[in-house]
């Protein structure tokens, strides 16, 4: 029986950082999208954009390897 504690620790840190980052960005985007000031809207949109990039990275993590296999011509 051997448990890879280092791998587990990496998983905890990685998920903690990424989840909190996305939630912070999305929350700030919602908060900033609410106000009246002129600068708020573009900043809010930019933050939504960053969330979009995070989602795209997630999709890349899920299917990236497979696409690589597909386009490099088989296994």
């Amino acid at each position: 029986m051997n448990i890879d504690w280092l791998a587990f620790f990496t998983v905890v840190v990685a998920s903690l950082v990424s989840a909190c980052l996305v939630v912070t960005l999305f929350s700030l985007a919602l908060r900033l999208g609410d106000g009246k000031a002129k600068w708020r809207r573009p900043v809010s949109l930019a933050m939504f954009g960053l969330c979009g990039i995070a989602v795209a990275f997630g999709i890349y993590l899920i299917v990236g390897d497979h696409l690589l296999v597909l386009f490099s011509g088989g296994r």
Partner: protein
Amino acid sequence: MDPLILVALVIALALFFDFTNGFHDTANAMATPIATGAIKPKVAVALAAVLNLVGAFLSTEVAKTISGGLIREGDGGVQIGPALILAGLIGAIVWNLITWLLGLPSSSSHALFGGLIGAAVVGSGFGAIDGGVLVSKILIPAILAPVTAGFVSYLATKIAYKVTRKRERDGFKRGQVFTASLVSLAHGTNDAQKTMGVITLALIAAGMQEVNSGPEFWVIAACAVAIAAGTYSGGWRIIRTMGRGITEVEPAQGFAAESATTATILASTHLGFALSTTQVASGSVIGTGLGRKGASVKWRTAGRIALGWLITIPAAGVIGAAAALLVGLGPWGIVMAVVLALIAIGGIFLWSRRNRVDHRNLHQPEPGVFVRPKKRKARR
């Protein structure tokens, strides 16, 4: 018995297992968006089904050992023939249906492992099981997964409520669509593979496919369709438990929990510490319940779910072992095992009709349950 018939039976049961796998796990991705009203129930299961279908086709890397090393297979170990795989599948399917009837989100992979372990033990004694692997791959992760996801989800919920004001929080519903979709896609790339692995193993064992070759295209297509159909049929009982049974979920909580689930699953698959999707998702929901002020976690339900996880492997193992005993009797034993399995499946299905749960009555309280009227919060 004609090996062709046996292999056909294994394939049929494997696809049915895939189907139960699909409807068991719809809740992981879609329970919270349905509960918060971010996506309509029917649309949510359709979206999950499509993403599972796509995900199944995208998966190219099939686990060579379906048992994940739990059973000492291969050279010098146990030879798992199609008959024992059949018995293991019966155990997995019946246990999956029982937990669905009880509305428990339990891991389908564990049910499959359990069924196969039970069958292998009957086939060749307890020496077939690698106890160390059982502890390090199943038991320890089963504790770590919900704790990790719960912790991440707790912090994410705190952040979401700190940053936003009340009237802005409906916006989280739009975010939920994306996070839930990611969970569904990840599920499709992972879970359909297990069934592909089982079918391929049976084909190889029967000498109908070359050793060490990947799944045939028709196997991939059949598994993809089976898991998508299962997902679309929606395990509404489990969705109810996850969406409402553990805690009342608001949009901000739903988004935080789904982000935590997505992040944890992606991190665990890419950094080499496998965690069960079901356990991660349940942990996130509990964590978000702890993270919002005024929300309460129903620990009784959480305890029932944890108990379900504990007994999943032994229970599926016992059913798998019983089926393996029957299968060991020869052709008639196999027929009897399949017939008994069909009777059990039919019985559970009929029993479930006594109180239907589907997208129409998903969030209605059960008759006879006392509903506490919502208290108006005192103004601060």
